């Protein structure tokens, strides 16, 4: 019987202890797995979301986030000029505004987007069709539900386009289609029309202002070359690739997720080590006589050490396997809770699976098995055979 088989039988001999150990490691492992998914999850999710929009550059007037800083003047002309650059495939200008849609009894608060440019619009039509010329609008599912609207329905809204209080006249649009917007929040109401229609709704004299110009680079050039070229032609504007945006996002406000994750990972691993060390040590102390007898019968020091190590591996391995589905289920539940934070896009996730997280999880569990076994291994390796046999008889 090899060391692993022997360790298995030792665990089965004390099923309550084995189950306690495996469940303990499963619980701790699930938390560990979730912490690893959380440490980079939001950033990865945001990067995926940015890439799914089909644009890999963002051009803004300043470093402020789109919608929160000054507008890009003459954005339509800039968008057309950018779209003509050799490294650029297409470009689209976007303007964001708030709006209240007339609907009894108090109206519906909405986010209004205006779009102009050569590229495909940054939304996906679910029903009906995309906006054409004239006063047409697409709305998301939440808007359709709240306004009881469908393609062909006419809606009237009042836009609010700056921080100063404005009293703008109502504007009427015809719903062309129902669309899905990548940055929609779970309960957000989003509407989108052409940039000039939104400009008019905002009462602007210059209807070609925009918050951001989204740019798709050509496959051959790639985003870095496109960033350089756009920045060279428009030195007054701020140009960011998706990678730059993610880096800013990572540096800016979300490093604390990684910090929390690191702290909790360390704590959970410490618990796992303590749990397994205590279980193994108690088990070994109950079996000192047997171990001394095995040594007297000729079992080498390394063999009894291997038995203890294999017990640790089996407990951690069993618990580690269980921790994966448990951690995945826990991540789904926690993700649902965290996504209730206001302003978080519905497609953004806090816990994102990545192979590297699984690899690190397995590596940390393997290290746990080794570290947890160190003390019990020391006890077994230094066990004085004769004294133990004598003590067992006297005891």
């Amino acid at each position, binding site marked *: *019987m*090899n060391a692993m088989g022997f360790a298995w*039988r*030792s665990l*089965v*001999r004390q099923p309550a202890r084995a189950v306690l150990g495996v469940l303990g490691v499963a619980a701790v492992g699930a938390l560990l797995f979730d912490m690893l998914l959380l440490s980079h999850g939001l950033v990865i999710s945001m990067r995926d979301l940015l890439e799914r929009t089909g644009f890999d550059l963002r051009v803004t007037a300043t470093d402020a986030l789109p919608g929160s800083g000054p507008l890009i003047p003459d954005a339509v002309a800039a968008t057309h000029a950018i779209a003509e650059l050799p490294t650029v495939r297409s470009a689209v200008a976007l303007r964001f505004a708030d709006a209240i849609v007339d609907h009894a009894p108090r109206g519906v608060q909405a986010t209004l987007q205006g779009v102009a440019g050569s590229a495909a619009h940054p939304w996906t039509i679910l029903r009906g069709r995309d906006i054409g010329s004239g006063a047409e609008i697409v709305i998301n599912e939440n808007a359709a539900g709240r306004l009881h609207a469908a393609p062909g329905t006419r809606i009237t809204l009042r836009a609010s386009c700056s921080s100063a209080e404005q009293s703008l006249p109502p504007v009427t649009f015809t719903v062309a289609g129902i669309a899905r917007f990548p940055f929609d929040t779970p309960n957000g109401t989003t509407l989108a029309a052409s940039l000039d229609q939104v400009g008019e709704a905002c009462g602007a004299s210059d209807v070609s202002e925009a918050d951001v110009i989204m740019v798709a680079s050509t496959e051959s050039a790639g985003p870095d070359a496109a960033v350089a070229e756009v920045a060279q032609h428009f030195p007054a504007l701020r140009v960011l690739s998706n990678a730059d945006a993610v880096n800013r996002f990572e540096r800016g406000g979300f490093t604390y997720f990684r910090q929390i994750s690191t702290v909790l990972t360390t704590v959970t691993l410490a618990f796992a080590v303590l749990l397994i060390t205590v279980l193994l040590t108690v088990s070994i102390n109950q079996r000192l*006589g*047997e171990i*001394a*007898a*095995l*040594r*007297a*019968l*000729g*079992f*080498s*020091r*390394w*063999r009894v050490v291997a038995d203890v190590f294999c017990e640790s591996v089996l407990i951690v391995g069993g618990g580690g396997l269980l921790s994966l589905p448990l951690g995945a289920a826990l991540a789904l539940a926690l993700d649902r809770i965290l996504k209730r934070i206001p302003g978080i896009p519905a497609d953004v996730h806090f816990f994102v699976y990545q192979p590297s997280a699984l690899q690190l999880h397995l590596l940390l569990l393997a290290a746990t098995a080794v570290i947890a076994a160190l003390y019990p291994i020391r006890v077994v390796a230094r066990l004085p*055979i*004769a004294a133990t*046999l*004598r003590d*067992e*008889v006297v005891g």
Partner: protein
Amino acid sequence: MNGTNGHIVDATRITRVFPMPAGPVTAVADVSLHVGRGDHIAIRGPSGCGKSTLLHMLGCVDTPTSGTLLFDGRDVAQLSDRQRSLLRLRSIGFVFQRFFLLPMLTAAENVELPQSEANVAKDERRRRTRELLEYVGLGARADHRPAELSGGEMQRVAIARALANRPGLLLADEPTGELDRSTGAQIAALLDRVNADGTALVIVTHDPSLAERSRRVLNMRDGRIDEDRTLP
């Protein structure tokens, strides 16, 4: 392989001193003992006289503080821990008062364990295990776990386990200490048979009836052999 003089064990003026907080305690003092092939030796004496310590040194689980202990002609003090483990595995069998069978293994698996450690081939292990369990009268209890066996049966399994790798020397520390008189007599008879079949036997015992079955009885007192009797 025996030593050049035909002895399995040559202990010459061995002493074992244990360092204690109150000062060193001499458990075995200046003992010389030679165990030859087929010997049947009993060691008697009051509790704490050093019987078990001497047995442990003869079995290479402890080393003398001074003196020379040769096993099959090799100086045990010069052997590494691994070499001593191999020596015990292949040349020495141990029987303990408390049996120390592994409770999660069946009788057969307990007997198979030292053979497995000695890398005996699986078929050979199975055959040898069956043979040994038949030898100790437990062929029908091979698949029983220790908890399902009586004290005498457990000691029989322990004897079979000790003989698994065909040792030249079997050491037994109070092998009947946990058994009633009748069961103890059965174990004593089994040990006699083991010895008659060629295995040297050294038994530490308080039991006079067990000691009197030996051909040589050593009486120990205060760590020394104060009487060495050869029985007819």
